[in-house]
């Protein structure tokens, strides 16, 4: 690949980035453990109990599409990359496609097993041919969703560093972000960071010099493969398992440490795994960088280097809103909670849940052909005129609305499906929200509202977001919740 590329070559149209609102700082770990084993991490992002790589990825994807001015139905190529897929086996891209409204014939793929899975996904999207005229689905776009929330043993450096976040890139021909050059490199170095089959905690042998050698060798090899000169970039977004290691690779990458500092997020978000270099790039472009080196590394070892010439439009939300104590952190991570209680009674089967996914994922309501009233969920007699239309006109609600009735379900008061959520996250808000229709009208839906009780009351404006609703029988059920978009009136 050369620096000279034709105008129809695919590039980066826009970047979206998302991190959970929760943060924990290094002091909280020091207080709990007497030490903190993640050098250079001052604070890190922590997923809520109802967040995972999928929900964070969807949140980032929505931002990326917004920033690019594109819609989900334009997606022709969808890639999801994470080292922490919520399910070890089961294709998660259909759920992402469903929530974003991607066409059913979009090419989808999942990359996992390495923190450079995101870079591999980007490479795959860029290689998906032909782009430009007659490209994927005649002018469709590529969407690369990279999300991660690694975890390790509670007393390990991996866990102390483990953060959370997601980035998504819209890939398109004639995009403002030109991919100037890219290269990859592999070198066999087992044992630096790994997760055994069936385990959900990442570990490593902690052989400092060896780990460092693997890191610099792979990244240096990728940088050497570039024709473009890395020293000219404004920021180098380098894989950051902690806040120290990326700087060790400065020499091998051919950049100075200030350039690495300009593309780092690890000090405030922690180790964001596969999303690490992408969040760094998003942050750098957001700060005004024009040329960015994205340098992703995965243990094993391999690295990808990508030089992107911007500026690239970015929609990023990388600031935290709520600080956790260490005990709250353990609860959020499910380290000290008991899961769903045993029992029987009310039950929604997976097939009956699946039938409602257009509503859960995309807020598909029905417009009564007789009286025009919106019905949610559509079906049966119209809630307004009482008629029994043969079919309702499918109407996707934009997802904005107003709280009409709300309560806080106090600790210990949740139905069984929500006991684990409440054990982890505490009291939650359950509400009825009037959602606006795309062309006027409104319809009420029951929903959880995210955030603090004092920030939400009757009249609060809210917007839809995808979260885990509950898990049952091993199946994660994703659907909409609402987040406040302004303070209480």
């Amino acid at each position, binding site marked *: 690949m050369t620096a000279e590329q034709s105008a129809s070559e695919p590039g980066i149209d826009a970047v979206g980035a998302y991190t959970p609102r929760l943060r924990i700082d290094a002091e909280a770990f020091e207080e709990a453990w007497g030490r903190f084993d993640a050098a250079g991490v001052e604070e890190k992002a922590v997923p809520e109990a109802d967040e995972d790589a999928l929900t964070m990825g969807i949140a980032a994807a929505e931002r990326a599409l917004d920033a690019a001015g594109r819609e989900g139905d334009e997606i022709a190529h969808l890639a999801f990359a994470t080292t922490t897929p919520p399910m070890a086996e089961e294709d998660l891209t259909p759920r992402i496609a469903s929530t974003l409204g991607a066409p059913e014939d979009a090419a989808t793929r999942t990359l996992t097993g390495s923190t450079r899975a995101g870079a591999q996904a980007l490479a795959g999207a860029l290689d998906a041919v032909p782009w430009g005229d007659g490209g994927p689905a005649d002018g469709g776009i590529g969407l690369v969703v990279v999300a991660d929330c690694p975890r390790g043993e509670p007393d390990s450096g991996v866990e102390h560093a483990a953060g959370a976040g997601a980035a998504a890139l819209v890939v398109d021909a004639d995009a403002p972000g030109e991919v100037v050059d890219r290269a990859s490199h592999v070198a066999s170095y087992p044992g630096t960071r790994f997760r055994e089959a069936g385990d959900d905690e990442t570990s490593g042998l902690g052989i400092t010099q060896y780990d460092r050698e693997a890191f610099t060798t792979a990244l240096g090899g990728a940088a050497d493969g570039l024709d473009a000169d890395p020293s000219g970039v404004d920021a180098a977004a380098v894989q950051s398992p902690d806040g120290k290691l990326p700087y060790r690779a400065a020499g091998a990458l051919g950049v100075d440490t200030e350039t690495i500092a300009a593309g780092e997020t690890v000090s405030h978000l922690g180790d964001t795994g596969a999303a690490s270099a992408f969040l760094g790039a998003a942050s750098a472009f957001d700060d005004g960088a024009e040329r960015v080196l994205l340098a992703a590394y995965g243990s094993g070892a391999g690295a990808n280097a990508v030089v992107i010439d911007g500026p690239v439009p970015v929609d990023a939300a990388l600031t935290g809103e709520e600080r956790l104590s260490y005990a709250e952190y353990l609860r959020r991570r499910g380290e000290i909670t008991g899961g769903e209680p045993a029992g029987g009674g009310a*039950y929604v089967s997976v097939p009956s849940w699946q039938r409602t996914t257009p509503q859960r994922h995309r807020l598909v309501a029905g417009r009564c052909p007789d009286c025009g009233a919106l019905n949610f969920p559509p079906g049966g007699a119209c809630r307004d005129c009482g008629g029994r239309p043969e079919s309702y006109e499918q109407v996707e609600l934009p997802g904005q609305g107003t709280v009409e*009735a*709300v*309560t806080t379900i106090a600790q210990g008061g949740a*139905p069984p499906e929500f006991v684990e959520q409440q054990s982890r996250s505490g009291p939650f808000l*359950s509400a*009825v929200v009037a959602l606006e229709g795309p062309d006027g009208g409104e319809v009420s839906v*029951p929903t*959880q509202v995210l955030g603090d009780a004092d920030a939400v009351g009757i009249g609060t404006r809210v917007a839809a977001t995808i979260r885990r609703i509950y898990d049952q029988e091993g199946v994660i059920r994703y659907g909409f919740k609402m987040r406040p978009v302004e303070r209480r009136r």
Partner: protein
Amino acid sequence: MRDAYIIGAGQTEFGAMPGESYRSLFTEAVDHAIDSVPAGIDADAVDEAVVGSLGVGGRQIGLSGPAVTEHAGLDGIPSTRVENACAASGYAVRQAVQAVRSGMADVVLAGGVEVMTDLSGDTAKYWLGVSGETEWERLTGTTFAGVYAQMASAYFDRYDATPEHLSKIAVKNHGNGAKNPNAHLGFECSLEDATSAPAVADPLNLYHCCPTSDGAAAVLVASEDAVEEYTDDPVRVAGVGAASERVGLFQRDTYTRIDSSMEAAATAYERAGIEPDDVDFAEVHDCFAIAELLAYEDLGFCERGQAHELVESGATELGGELPVNASGGLKSKGHPIGATGAGQIAEAYKQLRGEAGDRQVADAEIGLTHNVGGSGGAAVVHVLEREVAR
């Protein structure tokens, strides 16, 4: 159409009764009902039975009607269970009235039973709230308290009432329940207790919520052709009204009233040929204190938005113009789901016969019972009238 009369009614104590089964409780309630018939009745005279139960705990989901009537020795008669959540046995009584009025039966036993306190904490979580709309409402993490709390939030936003009015209702009902030997929580509470209790679902605190109870109640309904055999001063079923409403709160046009209650009451008043003003006392469905507040308006005891003023006035206290929940209500007397509606009728029967002891409402001639299923998905209202010296 023949008139229907209550010739006997009774209930077990409501509360936690680990020594009793759903069958033994029901049998005890039947015995109390039979014993209460002034001129006596032979169990063989019962033509039919209708049993209200939600079936909490899943102890006998299928055939729970025959399962309890066989235990009570009512072998061979048609026996069925009706289910309408917390309004199950209110509807059972209504069905008994229909059977009698239609001429298909002369004496019908209507009752209800529920056992709720023998479940493990985990199992109880699965059963409490099974009458909410399951696929959508429950899956936002709402409990029953949560749905009523949502209604309270909307009501408080729209009108001038406050959580303290709910606490005053709790204080009143506990005061009444303390006079009822059958009450589950038969103790008085202070306004301080009722305002400072821990939150359950904001704005509802623990004292704004009824308990879960074990218990059974039974009512004997007789036709006008048969009534004279059993009593000289029967209680006439002057009017019955029932209505349904969308099960999920979010499907309704308003959250600040319960349309099914309004409809049921309007029908019952019309059939009885009375106005709300004519009611001497009422047993209303106060599963949560906000429900009693809404009931004042839905049943026409005051104007819309004025229920808190009725609370302030003291009119609904035992010595007031319109005592409400003299039994202690669901809050203090207890709420064994399937038994509650028949239990309300049993209380009204006692009050109209002047047998309510320390909680007796003076000069009670017309009583109203109001039984609601879920958050209003079903409601049934009975107007009962004392007929003296036929």
